[in-house]
């Protein structure tokens, strides 16, 4: 079932068009990513979905609710973690959760939520004393305290160190296991590849492509490469005979095979048939970054 439907969303500000024409739909229980460079219209899109901005055109429904006409109903089913929204320095972690819980008719028992985001030890700490990762985890908790069906998470891990980023990613996966549908805005392809079931690539206010991360990469037909040191000399012809292989080059003792599709299994299988063991095997796959570049002619970051 489509929990979020966006069709032909258009939004302009006084002097420029932020979102030209964006359509996508998100299934219940999915983590859907909106990926694109800064200024592509990602945040404006989710702000319209969250009922914070009024679209100039198009149609949005969240669980059948119109974010413009039925704001009050939307508030009960959608929790938002906004880009760079921060709390007053003086508020304590538990007070923030307790306060936000009081805004909703049927909130989560917030001490459990505190535990879930790993902030129980920081219960009495002031917001101003929290690290970036702790702030983001609190922010996620606040977005979830009203038992939303949909959580919008905007630039969740920007500015976090790698460890904190991984902690937040685990948290997001855990939330999805609890049945919350997640709309995730990011400009990190690594984040999108790791977390998202499907991704919409947005560029210049339009959807360049939408698919699973693997589908997007495969769709643009970019080469992958398999690099290995063969235990016995290999005949290029053996490899070139494989339909997946486009080219074979040599780099000292190493063989580099380029191609598409299920390249690595095909190559290793062919080598095994000739009783050759691929040592130092490394597989380099195209990334969402590469796919984005191929689709839009632009780099993601």
């Amino acid at each position, binding site marked *: 079932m489509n929990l979020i439907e966006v069709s032909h969303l258009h939004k302009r500000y006084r002097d420029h068009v932020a979102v030209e024409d964006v359509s996508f739909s998100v299934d219940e229980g999915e983590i859907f990513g909106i990926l694109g460079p800064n200024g592509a219209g990602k945040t404006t899109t989710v702000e319209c979905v*969250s009922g*914070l901005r009024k679209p100039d055109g198009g149609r949005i429904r969240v669980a059948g609710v119109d974010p413009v006409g039925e704001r009050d109903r939307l508030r009960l089913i959608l929790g*938002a973690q906004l880009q*760079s929204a*921060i709390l*007053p320095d003086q508020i304590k972690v538990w007070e923030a959760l307790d*306060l936000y819980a009081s805004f909703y*008719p049927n909130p989560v028992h917030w001490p459990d939520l505190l535990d879930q985001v790993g902030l129980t030890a920081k219960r009495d700490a002031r917001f101003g004393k929290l690290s970036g990762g702790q702030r983001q985890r609190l922010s996620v908790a606040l977005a979830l305290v009203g038992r939303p069906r949909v959580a919008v998470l905007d630039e969740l891990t920007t500015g976090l160190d790698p460890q904190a980023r991984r902690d937040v990613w685990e948290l997001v996966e855990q939330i999805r296991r609890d049945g919350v549908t997640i709309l995730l805005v990011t400009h990190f392809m690594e984040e999108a590849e790791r977390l998202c079931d499907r991704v919409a690539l947005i560029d210049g206010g339009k959807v360049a492509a939408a698919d699973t991360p693997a589908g997007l990469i495969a769709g643009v037909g970019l080469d992958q490469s398999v690099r290995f040191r063969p235990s016995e000399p290999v005949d290029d012809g053996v490899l070139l005979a494989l339909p997946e292989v486009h080219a074979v080059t040599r780099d000292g003792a190493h063989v580099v095979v380029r191609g598409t599709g299920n390249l690595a299994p095909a190559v290793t299988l062919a080598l095994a048939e000739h009783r050759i063991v691929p040592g130092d095997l490394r597989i380099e796959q195209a990334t969402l970054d590469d796919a984005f570049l191929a689709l839009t002619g632009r780099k993601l970051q």
Partner: protein
Amino acid sequence: MKILAVETKMLLRDWPAPLIVLALPLGVLLILGSIPSFSEPNPDLGGQAFNDTQMPALMLVLSLLTVSLTVLPGTLATYRERGILRRMSTTPVHPMRVLGVQLFINLVLGALAAVLLIVMAKLVLGSAIPKQLPGFVLVFLLGTAALLSMGLVIAALAKTAKVAPVIGSVAMTPMMFVSGMWTPREIMPPVLRTISDYSVGGPLAAALRDTWAGNAPQPLHLVVMAVAVVVFGGLAVRLFRWE
């Protein structure tokens, strides 16, 4: 009303700000008020002593100006800049509540300053407790409402959180002048006194002093303050941005 509880706790944790609002006018009152000649009848004030009404009423005006024009706009502009108001507007509770709570807290802070000043002026300087008390309370409420409305306009106009209290401080100086902080209204030249009569600070100071001395406030002064509430309140409603 969890918002009120949390906002109050945060204010107390950030205690230097409210302390300055309360302690600075009180300190000035006690230091300047202890100058012996300030307790003697002064012909410039029509036979009143400085400490009778001029000193305590003007220090109350100073407190109210500080609260309304710097503390309130500073807090609201910070909340807006940090996205706190916007964040709240994604919940079922409108950020208007935070604004209402902030107005209430600052009104209470002003009332606290009034009580402290009245009590200390009585105990230390021998000033009277406001003799026309209901009138005094009315003037206090009306004047504070007018100043808080001006504070909301400042919060609406300030582009950043840092600039809001700066605008407030700049606005405070002429307000203090027209209220008679440096030149008591009695000895102002007629033109200046007329200007003072029509600027919010002048009517507030004059009406506080009138009721303190046991007289009725002048209708003109009440009208000017009421008009200020409507005008600045209306402007604030039109100009205030939640993000």
